[in-house]
């Protein structure tokens, strides 16, 4: 697991590796250990408790979930890396479906305009989030939650609470299409994950993101325009939420008024379960991918198991807590207990 970087313009993995004398690949592997173990354990439990879990139809359901959660989780990872958090993704996802349905009314000819409008709205939300965080120093948690509420208000005021209209059939492939038997959303996720991996680990932009998240002051002093880095991350996150909204619109074909009212925390959960730090500058895309896989498997497994709503929430909570707990380092007894133990040994 990587630690916050104190220096700038260094890759995320080089600093801790140099500090501990451990090869960087070993560090990378260690960071993936917890989520990978969790995923493996879950896969085994799923196989035992729901024997048909590995049937083609169930795997497709998992892949669809991966696409849905994954795309927003990638965006969330960018924001988390610059020490932010984006609670407005659920709002943007819902807003997108409302824009598509209301603007097109099911007419494909109106689709380009609606898509541009949805994209514009997403970018605007990203800019507002970034503006609040950067210009007014509003804590990201508060800023993006306020924007989430604002989006709900806009949707209700605009549609009088009753958005109506169909999504053009031309968009169905985004949600229900399959390529080589794999649902389209999963392909979106795969392509974007590879692109994100490249940006974060191979490009200057990636290094600037880690530097900004790790130590913003130091990054600033070294000439990085950190405000631009942070703003880009918020905008990117919102744009990816728009894409998820389009996938959702294509999936069900109707405007789903409920979507814009859900504070979708799965994107944050996936990144954090994978081991992306909430304090910024720590975490890699492989971790988010593992977090996404784990969450998608878990959500599908719980429904397959026929678990009730209470059990589903309970298990989700335990898995997320467990993963975060494991992330915080080796399990050690509290200092007071250790002191007593040492004293006991000495006497």
């Amino acid at each position, binding site marked *: 697991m990587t630690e916050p970087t104190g220096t700038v313009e260094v890759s995320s993995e080089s600093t801790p590796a140099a500090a501990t004398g451990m090869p960087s690949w070993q560090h990378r592997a260690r960071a993936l250990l917890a989520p990978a173990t969790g995923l493996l354990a879950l896969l085994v439990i799923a196989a035992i408790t729901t024997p048909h879990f590995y049937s083609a139809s*169930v795997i497709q359901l998992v892949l669809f979930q991966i696409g849905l959660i994954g795309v927003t989780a990638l965006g969330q990872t960018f924001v988390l890396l610059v020490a932010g958090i984006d609670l407005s993704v659920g709002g943007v996802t819902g807003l997108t479906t409302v824009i598509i349905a209301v603007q097109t009314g099911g007419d494909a000819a109106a689709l380009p305009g609606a898509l541009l409008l949805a994209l514009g709205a997403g970018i605007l939300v990203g800019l507002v989030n970034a503006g609040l965080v950067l210009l007014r120093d509003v804590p990201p948690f508060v800023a993006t939650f306020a924007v989430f509420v604002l989006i709900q208000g806009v949707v209700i005021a605009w549609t009088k609470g*009753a958005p*109506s209209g169909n999504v053009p059939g031309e968009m169905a492939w985004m949600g229900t299409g399959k390529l080589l038997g794999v649902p389209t959303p999963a392909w979106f996720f795969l392509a974007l994950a590879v692109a994100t991996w490249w940006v974060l680990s191979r490009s200057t932009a990636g290094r600037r993101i880690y530097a900004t998240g790790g130590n913003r002051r130091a990054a600033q002093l070294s000439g990085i325009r950190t405000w631009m880095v942070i703003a880009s991350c918020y905008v990117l996150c919102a744009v990816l939420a728009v894409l998820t909204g389009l996938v959702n619109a294509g999936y069900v074909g109707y405007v789903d008024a409920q979507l814009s009212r*859900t*504070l979708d925390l799965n994107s944050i959960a996936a990144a954090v379960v994978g081991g992306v730090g909430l304090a910024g500058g720590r975490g890699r895309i492989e971790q988010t991918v593992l977090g996404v896989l784990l969450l998608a498997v878990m959500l599908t497994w719980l429904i*397959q198991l026929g678990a009730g709503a209470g059990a589903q929430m309970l298990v989700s909570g335990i898995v997320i807590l467990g993963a975060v707990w494991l992330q915080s380092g080796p399990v050690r007894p509290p200092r007071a207990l250790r002191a007593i133990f040492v004293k006991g040994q000495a006497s």
Partner: protein
Amino acid sequence: MNRTRLTTTGRLRAAVAVAGVATLLLAGCSTEKEDPSAGGSGECLNADEAQAEYEKAWSTASEQLDVDLEPVAEDVCEVDTSDWKADPKQGDKYRIAFAAQGPTNSWGLTSEEAFKAHAKEKDVDVLYASANGDATAQVDNIQQLTSQQPDALVVVPMGEGIAGQVRAAVKQGIPVVACSGVLPDDSGVVSTVTRQYDLLGAMYAEWLAKQLDGKGQVAMLSGLAGVPTAEYQAAAAKKVFKKYPDIKVVTQQYTEWSPSVAKTVAANLLSKYPKLAGIWSDSGYGDLGVVQAYTEAGKDVPPLTGDASNAFLKAVKGTDVRFALSSFPPEMSTTCLDTALKILDGESVLNKVYIDSPSFTDAKASEYVREECSDNLLIPTSLSDALLKKLKLC
């Protein structure tokens, strides 16, 4: 049927509010006797007539869906409201406070627009407050409305957590009508006007049992866990299914009244229970997702139930999907207003006014679908064409 859609934060706040109100209730219960209008203990006036009125909604549903229904035991009585008889407190018009859900969906929108339109017809003023589907916000709303000294208060309850505030309003001499939902017996409401959840849940279950000849696997799809609209209906349905030993309820899942979520859940049901014979659902809007999931998988849609939305009726037009639908008409808010006005007039009212409204199956769907109207229209509607147009529902 998505009236009280609570967000995560909303639920949290609601929980805090419920805890707070519960504490207040405990404190209050130990020191004071309840208001006589709370009902339950006094003698039941005109019991037979009231009971017959109550059973009417059950017999209508029974006829329309061609199933046997046994009304759930309820004490329905006439309430003597002579003590509430009053002239307008201000000016020469009554001022009726309406603590509404808010236009968070087409049900909420229709409910309050129907109320306002009816108030205009009756020449009464409306003091309006929207809770945006949140019980905590509603506690505040009721406080605000009460402080304006309305002649009566009509409240669409967002949760039982508002009972304390309702009781406080009654103590200040404001008669309260619970509208499109129920409150605990000790909340002091003079009358409750609603469609009965027990009836909806039971009639869907009986219809399904009949379709399945009393045997087979059934999945239950409810809206939102813990929300009365969802839970009361599901509980009534489970009671019915218990009567049929060969019907097995294999799972109960929640769709959040969202077609997207319902579609994902249904796709899971498909693979997990290939022999599923029927789907009991409380929402036509969620059923949209179910039908899509089955159709995309190339499987026959099992018989299903739900409330009637125009979107669902349009989606299944020309298919051989079998279904039974009923409604929780938002326009019942007009009956709520009428009840409040009767109380102010000293005219006796029923303590529980259970709304009768049409139920139908796929055989009659073509009579109900409104092609020219929005997907969001709840079927059937009694709103005027002008109002439907104004609300962009038609």
